[in-house]
């Protein structure tokens, strides 16, 4: 029982410890304490998906997770997607396909896409639209986002085939 506690979690591969109050959400701690401001606060009640991060491999809206619940968890945020300055296939596809305008929803869409492609490397358009239904975008009209996800999936497939071919 406590009012303040040190929580340890693995965030983007690093073991991180932070002090937090029970009333702080994971999103607040990521943004305000750990300065990982990629995850965005949109609606603050779980409807828009802008704050999506992966917690133990599954997509969650971090605005509805208490930071205390992160104890022992493995968390991946948008900051952990690129490798240095090398963007991954999903980020690259969003950029090349202009799948964003204002960009507020983009980190959430990219994390949700990472979860989708990890579980289903070749999703159909319907499957993409279904999986991303918890992420809202008020700018693009979604078509470019869906095409970017298709393109990222194709890129990844191609990369994995060429890796296998060179083995």
């Amino acid at each position, binding site marked *: 029982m406590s009012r303040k506690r040190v929580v340890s979690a693995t965030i983007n591969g690093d073991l991180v410890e932070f002090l937090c*109050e029970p009333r702080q959400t994971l999103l607040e701690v990521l943004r305000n304490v750990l300065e990982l401001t990629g995850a965005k606060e949109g609606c603050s009640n779980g409807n828009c998906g802008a704050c999506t991060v992966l917690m133990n491999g599954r997509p969650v809206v971090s605005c509805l997770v*208490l930071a205390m619940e992160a104890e022992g968890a493995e968390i991946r945020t948008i900051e952990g997607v690129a490798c240095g300055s090398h963007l991954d296939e999903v980020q690259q596809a969003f950029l090349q396909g202009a799948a964003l305008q204002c960009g507020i929803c983009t980190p959430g869409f990219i994390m949700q896409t990472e979860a989708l492609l990890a579980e289903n490397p070749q999703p159909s358009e319907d499957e993409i639209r*279904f999986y991303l*239904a*918890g992420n809202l975008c008020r700018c693009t009209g979604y078509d470019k986002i869906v095409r970017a996800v298709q393109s990222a999936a194709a890129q990844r497939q191609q990369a994995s085939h060429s890796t296998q071919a060179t083995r």
Partner: protein
Amino acid sequence: MKAFEYAAPSTEAEAIELMTERAGTVEILAGGTDLVGLMKQMLVNPDRVVNLMEIRSLREIEPTPSGGVSIGAAVSLEQILDSHYLDPYASLKQAINNISSMQLRCQGTLGGELCQRPQCWFFRGGHGLLGDDGRAVAQGDNRYHAVFANAGPAKFVNNSRLAPALIVRDARLRIVGPSPDAEQWVDLADFYRIPRHGEQRENVLRAGQFVSHIELPDPGSFQCATYEVRQGAGPEYPLTAAAARLNVQSGVVRDAKIVLGHVAPTPWRSEDAEHELIGKPLTAETIEAAGLAAIRLATPLSRNEYKVTLAQVSVERAVRMAAGLPPGGF
């Protein structure tokens, strides 16, 4: 959010103790998809939050000796979809598949889904569960409110999307607390109640109690289905829904159970619709009669008469789907 104490016990007994020792108001946390939002809006302001997610027995899906399945209250909706034990209960999975936010499926739990507070915008807007003894809803924008059992102050609808599917399957709940060894079993159909005054909640849980498990009996030879009427494919709540359970032999309905969702302050069983089906051949005429019977006692408010038609359509389509027919419509 107001400050609160937080605890994550690892056993049911510890959880009960944390809920019953002098602690002021206590709320139970599972997936958090409803509670955290309510706390942020300061609609629910507990002194203590007890997180059930560390209790291993509450996160398991297990077959029962009697041929059914027991689901821990802290099992996520995604875990249910992935469980082979629940394959015989396809209409439950169908109902979860209607929830189109993948994040909420991964985070949300079965116990939380069944115990969620109403989406009523008067409640969510800070006007209380009954909104000035029902007057706020009666005189205000009540387009999403109850069309049955709305004569009292409670005019919100129960928003559970899984309760109708579970009630037609005769699901039971194991409720534990408030004393450490107290446990009771309650039919899910009897779990919900219509509050008469502001101090009452929407279910029978008393202080110091929580739902630990949901048990489904042997799947039997029933045909079940759930149908939701929604405005689109987005994450909004449905406008109306119905779950149907049929036992059809040689083309004749031997047994039927029909439960509607989002039409009353509790999941709403329609025995009138069931009577129209039982003992009759399953024809287009019988199904239409069941839909009409389901809405016979409807008492729409000033702005939700449209929901009566949708309730009828929900029943007809749920029955058609249970019978293996295409639901019809768009």
